[in-house]
């Protein structure tokens, strides 16, 4: 397999990387969900979520979701018949929209917005 560094290649690598990172994130997330069966332990873990590091990781998680989701929707659109020549535009549109959502949401999540 040969790779050529262009927008499509960058989008492909980004999708792979964010997908693997999200898959790795699922494991600790399921562990927290498992603790729902024990309210005392679950509430103790939830208490950690107010820490700045937790807020930052939450914003990081959102960035991963937006990057993977935006790219995924772009792939679905291309496979559904969107012109191939629009793939660069779609990538940068998803990127810009993702950044915008991330900026607004991260500000909100870290308590910077009303």
């Amino acid at each position: 397999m040969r790779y050529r560094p262009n927008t499509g290649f960058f989008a492909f690598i980004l999708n792979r990387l964010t997908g693997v990172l999200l898959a790795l994130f699922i494991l600790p997330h399921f562990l927290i969900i498992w603790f729902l069966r024990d309210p005392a332990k679950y509430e103790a873990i939830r208490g950690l979520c107010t820490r700045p590091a937790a807020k930052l990781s939450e914003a990081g998680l959102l960035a991963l979701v937006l990057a993977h989701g935006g790219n995924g929707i772009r792939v679905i659109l291309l496979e559904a018949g969107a012109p191939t020549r629009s793939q660069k535009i779609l990538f940068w549109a998803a990127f810009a929209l993702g950044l915008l959502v991330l900026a607004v949401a991260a500000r909100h999540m870290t308590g910077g917005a009303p």
Partner: protein
Amino acid sequence: MKGRTLFWFLERASGAALAFALALHFMIIHFKGPDAFQHGNIFLRLSSPSWLAFYLVFLSALIYHGSYGLWGIAVEYVKGAGALKTVKTLLLMAATALFAAGLWVLADSQILLSNPPGRCYRCHAKGSIPSGRALKIPFDRRP
């Protein structure tokens, strides 16, 4: 629809479902702060059949999309039929275990919610659950 085409279609369909489900998940949980994922609030949401159905679809889509995506990467990079078979077995085991854990939590919530008022939440018995003030619904209103 043949096997591989069906798997490919399900990967895309689960991806589209996840885009919607994750947007909703972030809006109701992560954007609302730690109160939104209080144990009591999550259980109150699970008392609604619509939310229960939503989480079942969310769980299924997540497990399928993640495991099939990782399988796609493995097919490209793992060399040798034996190694690929091992990866496949591990992925299937992990997917089954995670799906079962998710189902267990959802089923457990329904068992707890079906108990009589005042004793319907495990947390009430231990006195460790915060009140439902974030949703403004007292817990003892549960049937």
